[in-house]
């Protein structure tokens, strides 16, 4: 078990399959498959972006209702 832990961690992008040594390197790469970095909602695709926007709109509407 101790020997297993000595193996280096590898981060792979599930979209372009490029591999990185650190998470920050992964988060900062501009993915050739999507044209965005993993920090951008667009990296997760149109469906995620649409669901995210719809959820935010619902949250905003609820907040406004609570403040009335």
């Amino acid at each position, binding site marked *: 078990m101790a020997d297993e832990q000595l193996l280096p961690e590898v981060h792979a992008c*599930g979209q372009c399959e490029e591999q990185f040594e650190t998470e920050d390197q992964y988060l900062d790469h501009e993915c050739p498959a999507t044209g965005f970095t993993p920090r951008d*909602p667009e*990296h997760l695709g149109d469906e995620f972006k649409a669901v995210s926007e719809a959820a935010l709109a619902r*949250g905003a509407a*609820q907040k406004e209702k609570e403040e009335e």
Partner: protein
Amino acid sequence: MRALYLNTCLGINKVDRLYHAATVEIDERNGAPAGTLTHNITNTNMGSVDSVNLDPVANPVTPGNNTYEKWQQIHVTAMGGSSQINNLKIWRTGALGGSATHVTNARTSSYGGAATYATPIATASTLATQTMPTSAPGTANLGIGGSLAGALTATGSSDYLIHQIQTNSADTAGSTSTMNYQYDEVA
């Protein structure tokens, strides 16, 4: 589904708020520790190999055997305009083939805390021992920082979700169902 509560102070207008959601992906780790962490997986197909985004047709489970465990995390890669991600809920919708069972470490009570990653196994999981819910649980069933009440206030990941399908010899190979990963996002 998310519950979002956004501040309307500081003159933030609707357009701005629409573009300040957190960015959240599902990751999966495979192989011997530390393993390879594949970010933003495209599916959670389960089969007879320890592999991300696997081809279930090329890697079917012989009835009576188990799939390899999946070790997955909910990963917040950007907080957007949110202050907190919490209340993680995991469940499956859709039937399995025959009398196969789907087991997980996710649970709403007697949560075992954050598991330390270990090489996924195809023998019966000793960590995934509770039946996977088939509808949204009433409360969180996956922890953050080892606690079901935990929250992410900056980029980071949840505890590992471990799950495995265990089949019986009379089962028919092949079924399709959907995994659901839900979180709340708070302004």
